[in-house]
């Protein structure tokens, strides 16, 4: 049911309405979401980063030292709003819209038994979260334009991420009628819209994350009606040495151990630094190619940043790399 690889990749990321960033924990998902938002704002888009989950990290990256934006959301930088979609808040808002009677909403939400039911009940968090996203996507500013041009979702880690996206379909098939079904249908239509929406997996070029990404893409194509047109491969270590000198660390290792190098570490240390980075680079390159081959999708490579991703400075770098469209050559090379 998925498009053939690359069929919809003509739509640049910043021209989407909804980009759902997903990936295994530790892949830098939140950094990618925040970097994309920053790049979007640079290109003149009004961007919303919506975090799903218990912790809010994007606001900290985009505006270090700032307080969490919470459910109300806050403009953390020009053009970038951050919010965390808290399911209970979203439910209150939704019930308010449905029932148009604040007292009834409070009755429901303050009822201890009902809260207990909700604590344990499955599915509603995902549905209400996506319902809120749908609502945000539909919102218009006073100028009649969409309130947000681009909504970036920092989705839960891979396994949970797919469950998250699958809930509307499940509800549509499980619930025969009623407002719940109608709402789930709207959300399902939004997620399934190949023009508006795209899933953006973030991977690391290492054995387990690479395999998990390949499995994720296969599962998405098989089970979830959502477009997917590229894979971000994060934290790629560059080749440490220029062309023609790729094996420089081996040459350094052959230098006599006692070689006097004033102001420099020993030749052994120089060789070891080079060997470490070269082998990380080769490992990354190998798994990056595996991901390209295994998914048949173009790869968006992001550089490893030695400093870690601490704030806007690093996000700017990642954002620029993120929105330079994956080259046709890379895509071709990937499947060759």
């Amino acid at each position, binding site marked *: 049911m998925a498009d053939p690889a690359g069929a919809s990749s003509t739509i640049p990321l910043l021209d989407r309405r909804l980009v759902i960033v997903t990936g295994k924990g530790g892949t830098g998902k939140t950094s990618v979401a925040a970097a994309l938002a920053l790049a979007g704002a640079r290109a003149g888009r009004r961007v919303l980063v919506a975090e799903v989950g218990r912790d809010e990290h994007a606001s900290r990256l985009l505006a270090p030292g700032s307080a969490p934006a919470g459910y109300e959301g806050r403009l953390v930088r020009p053009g970038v709003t951050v919010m965390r979609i808290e399911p209970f808040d979203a439910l209150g808002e939704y019930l308010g819209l449905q029932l148009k009677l604040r007292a009834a909403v409070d009755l429901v939400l303050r009822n201890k038994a009902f809260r207990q039911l909700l604590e344990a009940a499955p599915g509603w968090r995902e549905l209400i979260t996506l319902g809120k996203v749908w609502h945000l996507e539909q919102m218009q500013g006073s100028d009649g334009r969409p309130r947000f041009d681009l909504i970036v979702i920092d989705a839960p880690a891979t396994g949970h991420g797919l469950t998250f996206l699958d809930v509307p379909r499940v509800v549509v098939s*499980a619930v025969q009628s009623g407002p719940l079904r109608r709402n789930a249908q709207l959300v399902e239509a939004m997620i399934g819209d190949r023009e508006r929406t795209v899933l953006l997996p973030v991977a690391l070029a290492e054995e387990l994350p690479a395999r998990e990404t390949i499995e994720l893409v296969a599962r998405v194509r098989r089970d979830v009606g959502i477009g997917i047109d590229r894979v971000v491969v994060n934290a790629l270590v560059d080749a440490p040495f220029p062309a023609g000198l790729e094996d420089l660390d081996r040459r350094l290792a052959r230098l006599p151990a006692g070689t006097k190098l004033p102001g*420099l570490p020993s030749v052994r240390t120089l060789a070891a630094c080079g060997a*470490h980075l070269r082998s990380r680079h080769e490992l990354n390159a190998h798994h990056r190619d595996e991901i390209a081959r295994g998914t048949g999708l173009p790869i968006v490579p992001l550089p490893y940043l030695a400093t870690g991703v601490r704030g806007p400075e690093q996000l700017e770098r990642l954002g620029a790399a993120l929105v330079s469209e994956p080259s046709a050559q890379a895509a071709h090379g990937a499947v060759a």
Partner: protein
Amino acid sequence: MSDARAADPAALLSERHVLVCVGSGGVGKTTLAAAAGLEAARRGRRALVLTIDPARRLADALGVGALGGDPKPIPRALLDALGVPPEGALSAMMLDMKRSFDELVARFAESPEVRDRILQNRIYQHVSDALAGSAEYSAMEKVHEMAGHPEFDLVVVDTPPSQHALDFLEAPQRLLEFLDSRIVQLLLHPAFAAGRFGFRLFQRSAQRVLQIVERVSGVSFLEDISEFLLAFEGMSEGFRERAHAVRARLLGPETAFLLVAGPAVESTEHARLMLGRLETFGVPLAGVVVNRAREWPDGSAPERVPLPGQDAEAEHALADALAAQEGAGFPAREAARAAIATANLYAAMVRADEAAGEPLREAVEARGMFWRRVPEQAGDVHDLEALDRLASRLFGANGGSRTP
């Protein structure tokens, strides 16, 4: 919660029966769990490693190939080669996150009819995957089961790679509270299952809540839920007892938790949050491991390395040495610059990892827990030598700081 016995990570391997590796995804919990299992076997214990997602090549290297839902022993010849004494043993087993909730239902259902009624219930089918923490809880059920197995002295487990890494601790409590809740008792009442008008009989406020839920959701959904809960009621007592036993095991004195973090600042900060949460739960946390931290080659603090072009004399010396070795035609000057640039970058990486771990280290040491940094290996850890190096760094007597 500090624990004097826990200050030495190696002691955990000989004193505890369950070792749980927690931490966010991608930090190498699986590999560390395997290394811990190997080290325990070397200390003469019969260890079982329960894993969610083993690296295929690591499983191959351990001679177990594809793992299944039953313990698979590591071949004796391999154990001998690794210095595991005759009384020690190591097995590995895969936790199937999808099937085990079905197994739970099968085990606690009072009859095959009830079991089938639950397994075939539309709501159950849709929710069993999604019920927050249920898969993780089922995994911990398995840990409890294997920890009681007479064949094993120590069960090492890596928890699911998810940001909900703590759900397995909350899930039983949540499920029990749910089963105890008034609304469930209402839904369970046969009068409700008989028809939507049945709940006229119940308390007014609960009735109104249900009416509102019904308006928002559609009644057929509610009926399916009540049918599911009715079917579930029969098994709730067994489930309740079991959940208490699992919780007691995980939080009891025979269990230790190991919090694993990656070297980058994102990961160490996340670990610091987790540290607080684990404490709130009363988890017996013994120590924190920062895995894959980069180290300066000789194990010391990174030296000051000049930027390329900053120290012409140093660059000359290195270029001369390379030219002498490689002969005419070798771009010795370019090579010297590249070598210096690379060492400079690597030193920055080592310093970044150290700085990123500092706040976490302070938090850990203030609590009297142990703290270990395990260096990044050059490649994937998928052979026994690499696993062996890892184990000695993690549990070595030298405090894991430096190995010769």
